[in-house]
């Protein structure tokens, strides 16, 4: 069986005459608008005419780097698409509207795809809210056992049980996800806190990350002869910063391989093929190159860092003109007032309400602020959430005063915020590219952006997602 890495978290599997794609991003970049794209790193081009047509495509989850509608539109209509049982209905309909056939796999039960079998295991309940519906894919072959693709979330008890009990045969390869997305020195990460509360990154952060990804997680399912790791393989255009740390496969291979005894660690580059074959009781793996994935020059992306003041200055969707600004502000306030009671009712909102002290003493009823910008380094206006009324109100404060008197908040450009609320931009894109936040506490999963990841996720906002998919299907985005 060949496992061909296509970049980021896309894979192709071949065995005999069977071809399966997993979470395929087949274009050079992904993203839902022309204005903001995420280019697969290291850069590569897929020669679609040479790619064997898939007998099935597995979509492990609905996030934009896994469920890439543009790529599915490049496939022959009628392609069989396999999804988990809680895959959002809105995504299913979008696939069906492309002419493909969606098949829901019952959790943990295999289906045959010619010579191979595919099963999906929903990730563990302890996973983050927005990853709760992610499935891990298991591709099984009679001779070579199973390959586990640990997509994003934590491994569930049932996958551990089935792997350990031999239900999946030998586990020959475990493909782990590195989603740490640590930016280069000096650049802002998605969860960065504008308040100086974070203790800073531990000096041996990479050790922690790869210990978690390659030891703690795979060891739960038993002893596996071959490990691979992927993820964090993209750069933004327009650029916020260069590629993430430890996404240089060759360097990482050099670091990690000597740390292993008798277990093979593979850090593939796009286009590399892990060819699994049985030698007696052992599973061997040869690394070859796929002929239909072409590596491109990546020199231009090396470690360009945009300092915070630069990357945040420009919005994704451009400046709102003077004649339109009043309507845009009203629209923004209406969307904030829609989310206000929801924010208040969630555990995040409870934490916001429980924050009784802030810089300079006790806080009043305004606990969460949105500083709106308009393609400028200076704040245009701001709104504050009054927890005593579950509503946002204009704040008559300077940019600095908002930051020092309200314990939680975000910075966003008004055009981008309204685009998010109209289904023209996804929260994942906005948060990673053009949003800043501040929050009391040290836990990034208890931050405004983490809350927005929940609030704007496809599962709970199907109407926004439906508009987005409609837009994608009717537009000519890069790569199509």
């Amino acid at each position, binding site marked *: 069986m060949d496992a061909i890495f296509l970049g980021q978290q896309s894979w192709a599997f071949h065995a005999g005459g069977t071809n399966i794609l997993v979470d395929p991003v087949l274009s050079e970049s992904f993203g839902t608008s022309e204005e903001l794209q995420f280019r697969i790193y290291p850069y590569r081009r897929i020669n679609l005419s040479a790619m064997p047509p898939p007998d099935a495509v597995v979509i492990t989850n609905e996030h934009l780097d896994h469920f890439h509608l543009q790529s599915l539109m490049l496939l022959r209509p009628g392609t069989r698409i396999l999804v988990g*049982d*809680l*895959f*959002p*209905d*809105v995504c*299913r309909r979008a696939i069906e509207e492309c002419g493909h056939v969606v098949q829901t796999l*019952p*959790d943990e039960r295999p289906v045959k795809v010619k010579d191979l079998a595919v099963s999906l295991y*929903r990730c563990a*309940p302890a996973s983050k*809210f927005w990853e*709760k*519906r992610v499935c891990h894919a298991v591709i099984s072959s009679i001779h070579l056992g199973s390959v586990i693709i640990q997509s994003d979330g934590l491994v569930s008890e*049932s996958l551990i049980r089935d792997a350990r009990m031999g239900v999946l045969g030998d586990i020959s390869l475990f493909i782990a996800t590195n989603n740490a997305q640590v930016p280069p020195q000096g650049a802002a990460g998605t969860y960065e806190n504008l308040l100086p509360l974070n203790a800073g990154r531990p000096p041996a952060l990479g050790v922690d990350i790869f210990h978690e990804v390659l030891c703690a997680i795979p060891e739960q399912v038993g002893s596996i002869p071959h490990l691979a790791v992927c993820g964090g393989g993209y750069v933004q255009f327009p650029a916020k910063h260069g590629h993430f740390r430890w996404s240089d496969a060759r360097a990482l291979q050099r670091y990690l391989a000597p740390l292993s005894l008798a277990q093979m660690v593979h850090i593939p580059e796009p286009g590399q093929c892990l060819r699994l074959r049985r030698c007696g009781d052992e599973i061997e793996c040869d690394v070859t190159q796929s002929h239909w994935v072409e590596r491109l020059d990546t020199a231009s992306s090396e470690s360009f860092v945009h300092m915070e003041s630069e990357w945040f200055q420009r919005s994704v969707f451009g400046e709102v003109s003077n004649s339109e600004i009043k309507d845009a502000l009203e629209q923004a306030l209406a969307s904030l007032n829609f989310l206000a*009671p*929801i924010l*208040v*009712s*969630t*555990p995040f*909102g*409870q*934490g916001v*309400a*429980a924050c*009784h*002290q802030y810089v300079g*003493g*006790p*806080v*009043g*009823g305004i606990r969460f602020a949105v500083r709106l910008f308009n393609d400028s380094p200076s704040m245009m206006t701001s709104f504050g959430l*009054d*927890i*005593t*009324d*579950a509503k946002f109100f204009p704040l008559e404060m300077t940019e600095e005063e908002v930051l020092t008197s309200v314990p939680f908040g975000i910075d966003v450009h008004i055009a981008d915020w309204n685009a998010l609320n109209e289904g023209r931009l996804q929260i994942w894109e906005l948060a990673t590219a053009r949003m800043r936040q501040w929050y009391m506490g040290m836990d990034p999963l208890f931050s405004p952006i983490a809350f927005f990841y*929940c*609030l704007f996720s496809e*599962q*709970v*906002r*199907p109407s926004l997602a439906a508009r987005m998919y409609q837009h994608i299907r009717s537009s000519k985005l890069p790569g199509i």
Partner: protein
Amino acid sequence: MEALNRFHTPKNDLAMNNRDVPTDPDKQASGQMKAAFLGHQSWLLTTETTGILLDPILADGFGSDDQIEIYPPRRIRVKDLPRIQAVILSHEHSDHFHLPSLNLLSRDIEVLVGVNMPRFVQQTIEFLGFKVRRICSGQKFQVGDLALTLFGVSPQTAFWESRVNQLLIHSLKNSSESLFIAVDALISMDFVNGIRNGEIDPPSVVVLSNNAQITPPGVFGSLDNLTDPDGEKAKTGLHGLKILASLLNGYLQGIPAPREVIICGGGFMKGYHELGPFPFSDQKELAAIATGLAINFPVHGPYPGDAYELAPGSLVESRAHYVELDHDRFSQLSSQSASFVAARRTIPPRACCAPSIDRDNSRQLIERLLEDMVLPMMLSPFGENMIDLREYLTGALGPKRLVVLCLDEQGQPCRQWALDVARAAFLQEEPLPTEELTILYPYGMVLFESDLQALAEGQVQIWDLAGVSMRAWYVGQAETSPVAFLYTWLGEHASPRFYRDNYGHRVAQLGVSASGQ
């Protein structure tokens, strides 16, 4: 309802509390603070020159029609109350914030609330003619010769109690005898940390809330689970001992043991008319047992009218002359509850609100209510558990996880919706009997259509329906049950619009104009 009329008096008898009335005529030693218990969780805190009411319920009951009677039953002669300078409202729940009671008070009394008190509460009180001041958590302030601090409660508290403020109070003339009133929620971490850091002196006396509201076998409690096979069995046992252990051991951990403890709370009768008072809501009886089980640790459980003076080194008990306990009715209710439990009687669900004539409108209102709650529900701890669940009684689960069944006035299934988590939408279905639904769906709520409509219109509060007319089933803990979600989403913090209308209606009933006249 007959019970409620026992103390029905002409309006002039409940004359407005007057600032000219002399200060507490009960003897009060110079400089000491006295705390008089008025029932449930209402207190009057006085010195010779100062009077502060905490969460006053001065009428015989509270609730949307004052239908929830205070227990033990008592009558407060408002005109005989000592002079009052301020009212403190710890939070917005109807057993603490009672408009008809405030309406009996002089308008020059200042009303003090925490910074997190819902705005509609402030607006409504201001409409009555009072001045409202917001007090920050942890900030010391004075009223007359009493020094006070409000503390926002622990973030671990159940969401619907998370806006509660707890109160530390002492007389300026005797700061060594302080009283901490730990209203409803878990103890404030700001308070605990203040003691640990040496910034706050540990209180000598702590008032704890016994809010257990234990329902005996045969009575469905607010957060009970219809499908819990051990549910009824679990209602038997040493619940009184559990209450004492959690109050006296668990709750107070983190602060030095106070010299004495006072237990109050649970002092009302919900719509379980056949039962009467909750078991273990006779705090005096409970406190006497606790004292017997303790070593040199007096526990007090006041009846309304019992007062405690914080004298140096001890609590001196007395009676407040303006509170009259109805001994006969108290005794009757107490034996009613005991005989209900002994006879193993049961209470069937009953509708709280009359059915609507326009059923199409009713359906639209309910569907709007359900549609609005999908997003917050899926993001809630309840929603997360619901999404995480893999299997139920009939095997692997599909995307439909929660069902809402409406009953008509005869108690027959009439409408049904199921939440599909892959669509993030409620879908209407053919109604089925509850027994079948509890097998098909891991989570469900069954209630009268009339009540769900009234809920959608803001005419009834979720607190009034749960247990009495609405029953739920679920997998997991009560804290992440469907009702816990509704308490959160339809509570005062997240859905103030319902309460604004509701209290506006109440103000109109009181006949108060904008000037507070």
